[in-house]
Every structure is written in C-alpha cells, then in structure tokens.
C-alpha cells in the first residue's frame, strides 16, 4: 500500500530540489565566468586589477543601500575603460595586459578616478541637505497657510486646542 506524503516531507523535497537548482546555477555561473575569463583573459586582467578600488569600496560599504560602490565604480570604470579599449583596438594579448598592469601611470589614473567617485559620494549629501532645507522652508509656509484656512473655516478647535474656541454665534441676551 502506497504511503501518502506528509506536507513536511513535501517541503523537504521542495527545498532539496531548489538547493539542487541553485547549486546548478552557481556552477553554471562559475563555468561561464571561467570561460569568459579564459576567452577575454587580457581584458579581464586589466578590468579586475583596474577596478580594485571599486571592489574595496564594495566590501567596506556599511550602509544598507550600498551606494558607495556605484559612485566609485562608475568613475573607476571611466579610468579603466581607456586601457581596455587600448587592448581591444591595439593588441589584445596577455603580455599587453600585464604591461599595463605593471605600469605606474594606469594605476594613478584608476585610483584618481576612483577617488573622484569617493569625492562625489561624500560631497553630494551636504549639497542635497542645503537644497532640502530650502525646500522645507517653502513647504512649511504652504502648510501654515493651509492650517490658517482650516482654522478660518472650522475654528480654533480644529487644531485640537479648545482654548479660545468659544461657542460663537449669538449669545443669550444678545
């Protein structure tokens, strides 16, 4: 007589299946990565070494959103791209790649551009803060005007403050 599978067993089977799938995916990525690295070896050498400041930024990132590597990475890429283009347009050999990597000037360029990225990353928030403060002042005056309109229409009690919220209208004896 065939036993029915319990929900627990079903879940376990499902998790085994999904972990198996993930393992396959990871392996596929690694294989693809290795193939790319082998095929584009010179490019990858320059890219990996040139983008080193970005990798550092990525790993030292503390904020949840992880924005620093984007700023640094974008500018770092600007510094690495000319050397990759040199490989592609002049001589795409491992020797050329190693020559580039072992030169001082490319390193200066790469770190300078990465530094510029850091500069943008650290310098923008204060500027944005100034803009926000200016916007807040404008918003506050709009809100105050809106509150004044509400008080005019509904009386002071609309603010939840009963003081001065007289019954209004005609008083007895008037």
């Amino acid at each position: 007589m065939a036993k029915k599978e319990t929900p627990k067993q079903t879940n376990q089977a499902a998790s085994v299946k999904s972990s198996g799938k993930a393992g396959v995916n990871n392996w596929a990525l690694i294989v693809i990565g290795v193939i790319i690295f082998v095929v584009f070896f010179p490019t990858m050498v320059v890219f990996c070494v040139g983008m080193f400041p970005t990798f550092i930024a990525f790993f030292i990132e503390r904020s949840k959103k992880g924005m620093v590597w984007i700023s640094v990475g974008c500018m770092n890429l600007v510094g690495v791209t000319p050397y990759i283009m040199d490989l592609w347009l002049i001589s795409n050999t491992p020797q050329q790649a190693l020559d580039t990597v072992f030169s001082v000037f490319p390193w200066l360029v790469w770190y300078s551009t990465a530094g510029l990225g850091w500069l943008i990353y650290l310098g923008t928030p204060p500027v944005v803060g100034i803009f926000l403060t200016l916007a807040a002042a404008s918003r506050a005056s709009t809100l105050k005007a809106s509150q004044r309109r509400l008080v005019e229409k509904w009386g002071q009690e609309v603010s939840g403050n009963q003081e001065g919220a007289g019954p209004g209208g005609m008083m007895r004896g008037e």
Partner: protein
Amino acid sequence: MAEEQQQVTEEAGGDSPPAPPQASSPSSSSGAKVLLKNRFELDPAKPLAHLSQPNGQAYAVIDKRDKESKLFAMVCNPELPQRLRVLHMLKGGKAPALLPMVEWGVAYWPMFKRKTVIVIYELPLGGKVSELGGRAKESFNEQDMIRNYITPLFEGLKEINARGITLRSIRPDNMYFMDAEKTKIVFGECVSSPPAYDQPVLYETIESGMCLPEGRGEGTLMHDIYSLGVSIFSIYAKKDPTKGKTVDQVVDAKIEQGSYAFVVQDYRLPLPLVEILRGLLCDDDDERWDLEAIELWLGGRRLSPLQPKAEPKSKRNIIFCEEEYSTCRQLSRAMSVHWREAIELVTEGKVDIWLRRGLEDKEKADAVELARKITLSTADPKAGDTLLAKVLMVLDNRAPIRYKELVLMPDSIGSVLAVHTIKKGDPRLVAELLLREIFKSWVDTRIKYSSEISQSDTEFRDMRNYMRQTLMGLGLERAIYESNEAVPCQSPLIVSEYVLEITELLPALEAVASTADPKSWPFDRHIAAFIACRFKTNVDDHMNAVGDPGPSKAVMGVLGTLAMVQWRHGPEAVFDLTAWLGASMGPVVGSYHNREKRRELEKEIPRVVRKGSLVELYNLLNNEQERYQDMTGFNEAKAEYKAAQDELDYLESGRVGRDEQAEELGHQTASVTSATLALVVLVIMIVTRIW
C-alpha cells in the same frame, strides 16, 4: 397644627380659613372692570360679603348677553387647588339642589395681581340659610323642618351622589335660599377650595376633623350625610356646641362623647329628629344611615334610634403625658399630638404591654411589638417616626394617616402636597411621608380590602417614584401635577397667568416673554413637570436633553419641547417667545463647527424669529443631515490639520537636510551623478577613439 389650634368661632360657619393672598381692599386696587369670557362683567369695587365663602369672595357681575339676569361671581383663592373635576361635571347640567353654576373661567383679578378661577352663579335671592340664626327667631316644628329643609336637601344630595360627586361643603353658611320667599333651599358652592377645606370641624366626622383642612380628601357620601346631619341640627336648634372650644377640643369631645351626644348635648329634640340625627351622626361609617335609610325615614318608617357603640376600654389605664387613657382611639389621638413623647412610649414597649395586659387585645399587641422590634434593630435615626405612624394606625384603624404634623386622608395626598408647596412653601414633610413609605404601613394595616385602598396605594407609589427621580419633568413638581389636575403651572415665570391646561402654556409664556429677563430661560422644573404631566405626546427625549450638561443640547431640549407643544396645540405664532428663545441659541449655533454655517444660521435665525414659529426654529437648528456633514467635515479637517502640524513639526525640527533620509538621498544623488558623468565621459571616449 396651627390651624387646628385656632379658636372655633361662635357662628356655625366655623373656623375661618386663612385669607387669600394679597387681597387688598376693593377700594384700594379696583378700577377697571374684569371681563370673563367676553360676557361677564365683574366689578371688583362691588363685593358681596354676605355671599362670600372663606376662599371664594363674591362680587357683583353683569351678564352682557342678558342684563336682567341676577348673577354673582365667586373669585377663588389662587393659592389653593380648586376642584376642577367637579367644576367640569357641574357645568354640564343643572343639579336641582345645588346653587346653579352658569359659567367658570380664568381671568386676571386685580386684587390678587394675577389670574385666578372665577365661577359665575345665579344669585340666591333669599340669602344664606345661616343668616336665619342672626335674625328674628324663626321657629320650626319638626314637620316644617322635614318638609322645607330635610326633604329638599336629601333629594339634592341624592341627585348629586348619582353624578359621582361629593360636596364636602355642607354647612348652613353654604346653603342658600334661591327665592326671596325662602322656600327653595340649595347647597352652596363646593369648588373654590380642596374638599372640606373650609368646613368647620363641627361639620366633619371625627376622622375628617382630625385632619389638616387640606388633608380631608374627597371622602364619600357618608361624609356628606354626616355634614347634613350636623347642618340639620344647626338650622333647627340654632345652637353651636363648639362655642369657646378649640379644634382639638372639639375632636376630643366627639371621641369621648360620640358625635350625637356632643352636637345635640342637652337640647331637647322632637323624637323624629332624634331618630334621624342619631342615624346621620353615627360615628361608624358602616352604621351611619345611607340614602336608602333616610328615604325610608322620610317615607314615614320610624326606626329605633341607633345607639352609639362603646369603644373597648382597658381594665387599667395607661398614663401618657400625665393623662390617663382607657381606649385605643383616645390614646392614639393623644400620641399623635405629643409626637416626641409618644415615640418614647412606644420604643419602651409600654404600648404593647398595655394592649396585651390592659386591653387584652393580643392581635394589636403583637402588631405593635413586631413593629417595635423591627425598628429597634435598625440604625435609622428617623425610624421612630415611621414606627409611631404605624403604631397609630394599629391603635386606631379608622383614623387618618398621621405623621408628625401631617394628618391626612389617603385620597387627599395631592391636595396636601399642593397646599404645602404652593401656600405653605415647604413640602419637605410631605416628601418625607412619601419617601418613607408611610402609606405602605397604611395599606398593610387595613382590615377590609377595598378598591379605594388599591387606588390610593397605586397613587402613593407613583408619587414616591416621581419624587425619587431628579431629572427634568420628574421629581416633586411632577408629583404635584400628577396628583392635582387643578394645580396651575407653578413656574415663577407664569404663575400669575394661572395656566391649567397645556393649551394655555405657550400663550402664557408669550405674554410674559416681552417683559422677561432675556438672560433667563422660558423653562424650569415646574414647566417641565407640567408639560410631562399634561402633554399627551411623548417628549422624553427632549426633556432628557434639557438636563444635559452641554449647553447646546440643553437649549435644544427646551426648544424641542416647546416646539412640540406649539406643533400640537398652537398657537401658530408666538413672536416674543420665539425671539426670547432665539436669543438663547448661542450655544446651539456654536455647536456647529463650520464658521460659514454659523454665519448662515445667525442670518437665518432672525428671519425665523420674525415668523414666530418655534417649530421652524427647531427644524432650522436641528437639521440632522447638516449636523452630520458638519461633524464629518470637521473630523476630516482635524485630521488634515494634524497631518500638516506633524509635517511642520518635522520641517521645523532642524533635522531636514541632516538626517538619515537626507544622507540617503544625497548618496542616491551621488550615485546618479557618478553614473551620468561616467556615461557621458565613456560615450565621448568611445566616439573619439573609434572615429
């Protein structure tokens, strides 16, 4: 018992009751004639003293429709409740042996400076029967007496009894000869004051004589028959046995000697009159001659005279307040007069010992002992009063309810409450009597069941329930109106307008509105109770709102109640009253939150006020839909204001541009800037390198 202490006057007309209020002399304040129902012209300058009664002053009157008719007007004391039910019943048709009533109504009487009840009667040309005594001695033989007095008065009493009315005012000075020849005798008025209020104690039974004047109650035919008996003797013998005696002495003498012996004393009456007077003056209501017995006697059947039944006497007397007493009735009477000392006597157990050993009445002794033991087991300091009231009922079952200074028949509780509130200005004792449920003891001590007992019990319970509640429309005021249909609305605002019917309420308020203090309200506890009692439509919701602590609800409660009255009974327009109320609508207008609505109402109210319609004013201010819209709009506005305030608080906190959010936004901006810059540079770079 101040009134009981007053000296009985020489005349059989007896104890003169208190004079009506502010009754200045006619010459001092009379001037304009008073018109009643646009027909009867009363002249305050022409009093007819010889026709007046203690609480009804007689005045000359002219009937504008028939100037030849001979009439007189009786102006009633406005501080006393008149017998309205009897007035309504008598207006319907003529009773042959009753002073013919032509009309009655309410009109302003200048000497009282207020409105009061005025009754128009046909003028009795022969004057009062009592005036015979003051003139040349007219002697009758018993046949004259029977033919000219007893027979017509008996026939009259029979006819009146058939209408379900008790006169309670039978005395020679309230009997008249309608013709100048003095051949047609009639009973006089019986409506100007509460039942038997003006009766001298001589003409009242022992029990009724014990009562306060206002506490004698409607009574029964037997009370009228007793009064008729005394009146027959007074007319025949022209003697007053009460001469020089106080009310208390008269009652005590009647208890001691029996009514017949006290009234007749040593006067030698012809045998037929002895027979009827013994029958009519019998102190036991069950033994007293009724109409049938009188009719048989008038038909010539002679009966052996009734002999008074002796009260059971004790073997040894009880000493109380240095006096010896041998009968329960005498002792209870003395105890009711010496209240404090009597409580001591009862709580010491002397009364039940005397009943058990002296009188050998085990039943009464047990009842008193049980009541005493129950009282001693309670910590209530006033329990002694309740105990004594009950013991007095046990000792003398026929006696009225006695509680401290109050002595009253159960059916008079309405009159007593009214008189103590309106005239004496202090209803606390009556309230105490009702709230301490003295009446329950009275019901419990009845030997025979009767429908009247059950009716009184219900009335007492209702009054107690009203008095226990303090809401508007209830309380003492409600008890007064529920138990007295003849009490006009006692609100100080309109008391002078003598408002008896609900239809008269708004016209009366309208009349005083123009001169009233605009800061006051046209509403108080008396008006509320009067409406709750006399208005047949349910206004409980409005009435409850009047007592609300919120001024707008209270004002709307007043307006709603009066608007309901106008809607049901008119008048169509009450301009001054609407203006008065309209000026009090500040809190109601203020209860709307929307300022535009307020301004709109402030414009609208004067327009409605000019129409004089309370109903429209109420509808204007109590539009449920608009009130709902106002409330929901206000709540939304409040939420909007709060949201704005919260945002403002944040904006003004100094954290804007410096907090985490700003930093995050800065970083996002930095990322976007970097990416954009990189993209631009890369594109330029690629383009320049390829081309």
